[in-house]
């Protein structure tokens, strides 16, 4: 059986693809920044047993890691309005991604913090640093540096996972694909192109993050 590919019918919709790509990237960027921030707070709470936050984060991490992302998204999108919190599809998508990444990065960063040699902490204490100074200057930078590759992978996973946001009509890349194939009836070509786009996006995001990490955290020339 011969299948005649016709990519021109996809390219007609390139504006929708570009727009979807930018929105996917935007979601990922916001999700990454706030998700990693929550991850740092969660990690220090759990690693240093800061009551009551360590318990709160433990419950949060288990809840998020043991439920599907799509269900979390629906929970926020359909659940919050029932509680009287008005929320649009983008707010719901961002919130879901931040919450999801926050949980996973809590565990990843915690591993980095717990790998800090005891001597480093004692050296900082003997220099009269407060716990906050010690965390900010001595514990956190090497911890992030150690787990940075894992964090980059997790951000890529969350970016790919953002495709389910199309289910609540957030017009990101997968939404654009669904829209295009419903117009041109060329599902194979459309998803062929979009698969390639996700693949390249994932490679690019990982590279950018690894470079940024070396600049921001390491601050040393290789």
């Amino acid at each position: 059986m011969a299948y005649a590919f016709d990519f021109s019918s996809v390219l007609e919709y390139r504006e929708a693809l570009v727009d979807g790509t930018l929105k996917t990237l935007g979601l990922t960027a916001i999700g990454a920044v706030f998700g990693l921030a929550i991850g740092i707070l969660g990690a220090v709470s759990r690693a240093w047993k800061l009551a009551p936050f360590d318990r709160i984060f433990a419950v949060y991490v288990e809840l998020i890691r043991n439920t599907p992302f799509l269900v979390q998204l629906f929970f926020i999108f359909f659940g919050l309005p029932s509680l009287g919190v008005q929320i649009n599809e983008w707010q719901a998508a961002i919130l879901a991604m931040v919450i999801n990444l926050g949980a996973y990065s809590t565990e990843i960063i915690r591993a980095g913090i717990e790998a800090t040699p005891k001597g480093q902490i004692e050296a900082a204490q003997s220099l009269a640093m407060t716990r906050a100074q010690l965390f900010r200057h001595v514990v956190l930078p090497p911890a992030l540096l150690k787990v940075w590759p894992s964090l980059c992978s997790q951000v890529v996973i969350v970016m790919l996972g953002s495709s389910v946001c199309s289910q609540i009509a957030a017009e990101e890349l997968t939404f654009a694909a669904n829209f295009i194939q419903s117009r041109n009836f060329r599902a194979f070509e459309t998803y062929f192109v979009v698969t390639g786009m996700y693949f390249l996006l994932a490679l690019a995001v990982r590279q950018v993050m690894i470079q940024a990490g070396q600049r921001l955290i390491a601050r040393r020339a290789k």
Partner: protein
Amino acid sequence: MALVHIDALHKHFGSNHVLKGIDLDIEEGQVIALIGRSGSGKSTLLRTINGLESFDDGCIEVDGERIHPHETDLRALRQKVGMVFQQFNLFPHLTAGQNVMLATRVVKKMPEQEAIDLAKAMLLKVGLQDKFDSYPDQLSGGQQQRVAIARALAMQPRVLLCDEITSALDPELVNEVLAVVKNLAAEGITLIMVTHEMRFAREVGDKLVFMYQGRIHEAGDPQELFANPQTPELASFIGSIN
């Protein structure tokens, strides 16, 4: 009045009574060598002096800063007491210069240029003025330990504690570190060092403190004690290491 005053200090690790009533006075400018077998309590004693170990009874006073058992706010004490560790414990993500500057910047809030100048002066003092921008993993063990000494000195402590600072070094690197300590002693810095370098203790120390089973078993002038140990335990200890 003594710069460091330790009075009836007791400490337990669980059921193990590791410090059994330590009394020790250290005058400004003295170099104290703490010696003894492993497990005799010498490192624990040293670590209580800047609050890395808590204690159960007695008290410690450094330059008027008094601490009691289970004290939690130790920062005022730690500003007066510097410490150098066996394993160097440099911060691996910072250059030698940044290691030396960090506490002066974040704890003492020193302006950046002043902190840089001070860090350079401290590195010069330990003979590493050209290593300001080197990272710890680019330095030898002896150089790392000298940076660690400069880092402690930058906080201008009244007392410097040295916890077996040459024990992790290759034999050929020991002397460069000891030479730095010797210079500090000559400058009149008050030093308390746990050491296995007996010749050094004898040459540089003003006072030798021999610990045995959690007590100060014998203390006095190093030359005299080495020549005429008063107790069989010290005699046997000196015999075992020569």
